[in-house]
């Protein structure tokens, strides 16, 4: 009986340890994923159009470490982005903020799409109106068509 209890205790301990390990691994993976997600939105300061997530530059590595550190302190994604924005300005954000001059970047494509759709609609309408117009044929035209049909038959 004593042996069974010891064996059960050992199994239970191993099981608990493996659950704890899984939990740690999962939380680490979640943290890494979050760091990657945020780094994707940050511009590498010393690269050309590359995100902090994609860059191997030392400053990007340090920014990823800083992001991890801030997340571990309990900061939200917005707070982490604001941290870098405060130091580098709006330039550091790969997605420009939806305010001020940056609104143009978001609004102009929508405006261009609306203008495009309206122009296309206008042109299609014009084309349809043209096709609806009655075709007035002269006697000469009719004779020419009839002659062509006769020749064909």
């Amino acid at each position, binding site marked *: 009986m004593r042996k069974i209890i010891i064996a059960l205790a050992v199994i239970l301990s191993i099981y608990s340890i493996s659950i704890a390990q899984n939990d740690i691994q999962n939380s680490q993976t979640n943290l890494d994923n979050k760091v990657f997600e945020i780094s994707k939105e940050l*511009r*590498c*300061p*010393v*690269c*050309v*159009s590359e995100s902090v997530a994609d860059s191997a530059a*030392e*400053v990007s590595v*340090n*920014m990823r*470490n*800083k992001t991890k550190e801030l997340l571990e302190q309990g900061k939200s994604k917005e707070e982490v982005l604001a941290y*870098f*924005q*405060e*130091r*580098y*300005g709006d*330039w*550091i954000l790969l997605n*420009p903020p939806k305010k001020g001059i940056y609104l*143009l*970047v978001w609004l*102009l494509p929508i*405006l*261009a799409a609306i*203008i495009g759709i309206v*122009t296309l609609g206008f042109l299609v309408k014009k084309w349809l109106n043209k096709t609806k117009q009655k075709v007035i044929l002269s006697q000469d035209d009719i004779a020419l068509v009839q002659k062509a049909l006769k020749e064909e038959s």
Partner: protein
Amino acid sequence: MKKLLAFVVALVAIAGIAAISFFGLQRGSPDRDIKSNLLGKTTFDFNLPVYERYQNEYGPTFKLSDYRGKPILLNFWATWCISCIQEAPMLESAWRRYKDEILFVGVQTLEKGKDAAGNDFLSRFNLTFPSLKDTDSSVSIDYGIFGLPETFFIDADGKLFYKHAGPLTEAIIAQKLEEMLQ
């Protein structure tokens, strides 16, 4: 009338695309003199280890806020940075000229574990103003460094007066110092 309208629409569309492209190119370029977000604001404090050769005068660590009351020229450098090498002799000569009015402070950054190379750099140019080690580049992030060298002119109240990207000249130092002390 319709033709004129079509022309205006096309013109607006082309201007819009050109503006977006220009804006995009501006944002993509890393080597521009990007205005610091800290201008006019109190700069971030730091406490960094001092290179051994300066420790007699400045102690083992240098805390920026301990030097409030005197303007500071904060110069970020690295041994791999060619412009920093070009700039170093001029910084030393400017430091000797202006040391009564402004404290020059060098910060080696964006290179981990390069103390020996840093020491060689300081010896090569016989730099007598204190240099610090930003070993984890955290101060470079705090100051929003885009490239090296970058220099920050901090006024006596600890506020950022001017940021210069790229190598400095003595003329720029003289001009900015004069403007800052006014």
